[in-house]
Structure formats: structure tokens, C-alpha cells
């Protein structure tokens, strides 16, 4: 997660879109960044008395009751007061806990979390992930301290950036050419698209026609996934000039036996795992060729495979 581009482009676009760092942060930071984890929980069979003691130790106003990570209910300070008042403080939590629980998801933005605090007036929310497992608890205090921490970090980063910018300003004039370089590892499906994403950002900043931008992005993305799926590892270099993008993908082998066959749609040598992830349609190389203005591929058993693609650039009308 890196906020710098968002702030930068916001400021560049003019005053209308200027937003404060704190404002950006509440959108950017997630409940998972601010919540306390792992959550302190109690079992449904625990007595309200033991939960009262746990609340006292941790200074909590509520404790989630869980079984195997599944949220069953919450015992709040109010439940404890009632139990003391009515004399059932030694009974198990499951008998008296509140069962209708409002929860937050760990991927919610903090701005959404704050809205939920305002809406419900609760002091704390249990936090679930997308598989409905309890992963934390969040309070308004957690949000505040998380924001403070990140603001401090941003301030430090801003100071450091200012120093670098002053130094980099000199090079700015020749910055017409941007070169993006990425090592690509075999089987690293989680990293697919990293280079293509960086390239897209540059092309968007340069106001390149969206259709051309998408073609370049397809070439870069397919080149990345090809190396991940088929090769022993390699690298990609995207050279962005004002009038064209050059994408050079090289790997260290094992090489393609029959390039003509590989260029046919539907032909694939991908294994089971990549296919399950939606790769291996046999369209990678044909896609790259179709999206390129210039396309060359060389491959042999000794040097591996080298693909060179060029996409001519034009600014959006």
C-alpha cells in the first residue's frame, strides 16, 4: 500500500481534488490495520464471573464469545451489571450473552468503520474476515491511534521525499524515458501483474489513449504470466518513451519447441495448478501478438525464450 501516487496526482489535478492526508488515510487504511488482534475471547461455557475478571484485567467493555473461531455472541458490561443485579453472575456466558451481533469486516475502510460506529453507537465491534471467522476487535480508540501512527509515518516520509525530489529535479528533463524492470519467478502467481500495473500508471499519467494503454497492459501482463507459468524464471523490461513502449521478456529456459504451434490459439502446455487459476487458455502469445504493433519471438533449448514487443503510443484525443 502506497499513498504517494494518490496524493501526488490529486494535487496535480488542481485544487478541486485536493484532499488532506488524514482524509486519504481513512479511505486507505482498513479495519484490519487498526483492529486489536488476536481478539481476547471467552468460551460459551465460561462463567460470567470469569468474563467479568477478564474485562477488568484488559479494561474491555465487551468480550466476544467464540467456539473454534466462530463468533457466537458478545458479553457486554451491561450483561455483567444485569447478572450482578439479578444474581446469575456464576452462570455460563451462553445463557446470557447478546446474540444479535453487529460486526465489521476486516477489509472495510476506516471511513466505513467510523460510519458504523456513528450509526450503532456501540463502543466496539467484533471483526470478521470474508470466511466469517473472528479475527479481531475494533474500538474508536484503535482507529484514532492507528491514524496518529500513520500520520506520523507519512510526515516522516514527506520530509524524506522532499529531500529526494530536490535531488531528482535535475534529472527531470531527461525523464522522458522511463524504464521499468522486474525479475519474474517461476510459479509466483501472486506477483503476476506487478510490472504491468506500474507501466499502466506511467501511461495513464502521460494521458495515453486508453485503448492503446490497455493493449500495452495486456502484452506486459501476458509476458509476466508466461514466464511465471512456463519458464525457469526470467525478467521483463518495459521501456516507455514518449512515442512507444518496448516490452522485452527474456527467460532462461526451457525454450519453446515449436513456436508456430505455441502461437496458435488454444494450444497450451500449462499444468494443472495454473489452469485452475484460470491461466493456460493457450491465448497468451496470440494475445501479445494481436496487441503489439511490432512483435518478435526467438526461442531455443539453450538460451530460452526472448520476446520483443512494441506498442506505438498516442495521447488520448
Amino acid at each position, binding site marked *: 500500500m502506497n499513498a504517494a501516487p494518490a496524493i501526488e496526482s490529486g494535487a496535480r489535478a488542481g485544487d478541486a481534488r485536493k484532499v488532506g492526508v488524514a482524509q486519504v488515510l481513512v479511505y486507505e487504511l482498513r479495519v484490519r490495520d487498526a483492529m486489536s488482534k488476536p481478539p481476547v475471547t471467552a468460551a460459551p461455557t465460561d462463567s460470567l464471573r470469569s468474563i467479568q475478571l477478564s474485562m477488568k484485567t484488559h479494561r474491555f467493555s465487551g468480550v466476544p464469545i467464540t467456539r473454534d473461531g466462530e463468533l457466537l455472541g458478545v458479553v457486554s458490561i451491561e450483561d455483567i451489571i444485569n447478572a450482578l443485579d439479578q444474581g446469575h453472575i456464576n452462570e455460563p456466558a451462553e445463557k446470557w450473552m447478546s446474540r444479535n451481533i453487529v460486526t465489521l469486516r*476486516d477489509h*472495510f475502510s476506516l471511513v466505513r468503520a467510523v460510519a458504523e460506529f456513528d450509526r450503532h453507537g456501540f463502543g466496539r465491534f467484533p471483526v470478521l474476515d470474508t470466511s466469517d471467522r473472528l479475527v479481531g476487535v475494533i474500538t474508536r480508540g484503535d482507529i484514532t491511534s492507528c491514524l496518529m501512527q500513520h500520520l506520523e509515518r507519512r510526515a516522516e516520509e514527506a520530509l524524506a521525499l522532499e529531500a529526494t525530489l530536490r535531488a531528482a529535479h535535475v534529472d527531470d528533463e531527461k525523464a522522458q524515458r522511463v524504464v521499468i524492470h522486474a525479475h519474474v519467478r517461476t510459479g509466483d502467481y501472486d506477483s503476476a501483474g506487478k510490472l504491468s500495473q506500474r507501466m*499502466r500508471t506511467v501511461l495513464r499519467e502521460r494521458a495515453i489513449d*486508453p485503448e492503446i494503454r490497455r493493449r500495452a497492459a495486456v502484452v506486459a501482463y501476458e509476458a509476466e504470466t508466461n514466464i511465471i507459468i512456463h519458464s525457469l524464471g526470467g525478467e521483463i523490461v518495459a521501456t516507455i518513451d514518449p512515442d512507444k513502449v518496448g516490452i522485452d521478456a527474456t527467460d532462461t529456459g526451457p525454450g519453446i519447441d515449436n513456436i508456430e504451434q505455441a502461437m496458435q490459439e488454444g494450444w497450451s502446455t500449462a499444468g494443472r495448478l495454473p489452469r485452475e487459476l484460470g491461466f493456460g487458455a493457450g491465448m497468451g502469445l496470440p494475445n501479445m501478438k494481436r496487441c503489439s504493433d511490432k512483435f518478435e519471438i526467438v526461442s531455443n533449448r539453450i538460451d530460452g525464450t526472448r520476446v520483443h514487443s512494441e506498442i506505438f503510443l498516442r495521447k488520448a484525443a
Partner: protein
Amino acid sequence: MKTFWEVVRAEPLTDHVPESVTGCYISDLLSDVLAHAQPGVLWLTVQVHRNIVSVAATKDIAAVLITCGRKPDSAVVVEADEAGIALLTTPLSTFAAAGKLWEAGVR
């Protein structure tokens, strides 16, 4: 008037979901989507790996509707939010969801 995602009983996973989409594309093969999907469409797939976000971003796809009740990791949702791609999940099958969307006028 229901939104396109209410029509398929979808649960939005990302903070932002567009009010409408310009059309629909269905495929579980990433390269096929890269080859044929139009920008601004809703993409229906059973894939949940983070590459769906990369592919959607590459083609300026507006939203990804994950079918058959499958759900991606929270990390994928965060990534989608950052990329400005909406992610939704529906309990319906791809076929049923497509039918309902067609009926609702998403063409």
C-alpha cells in the same frame, strides 16, 4: 428499480460498487478476458485468485461478480479497492446470474 447486483442477490465486497455497467463478459480463462472483454463491463467468473484484479485492471473492467458463492481472500478485496475495481459475490451459478442480468436489461 433494482441495481444490477441486487438482481443477482450479490454481496458487494469492496467499498465502492458502480451503479451500472456497460455490459457483461463471462469467462474463467484470464487470457480470454484479456482478449475479448470490453472496458466498463461486469465480469462473471468463479475465479477468486488475486489475478482477477490484475486482469480487470488491465482491461478497465468495472466490476467482477464472483459466482457460485465463492469468496476471495480479504487481501484480494483490499487490492481491488485500491485498484478501483468493484468485487461482488453471488450465491447464484454463473448461468443463473447471467440469466437474471440479461432479464434485467444488462446487454
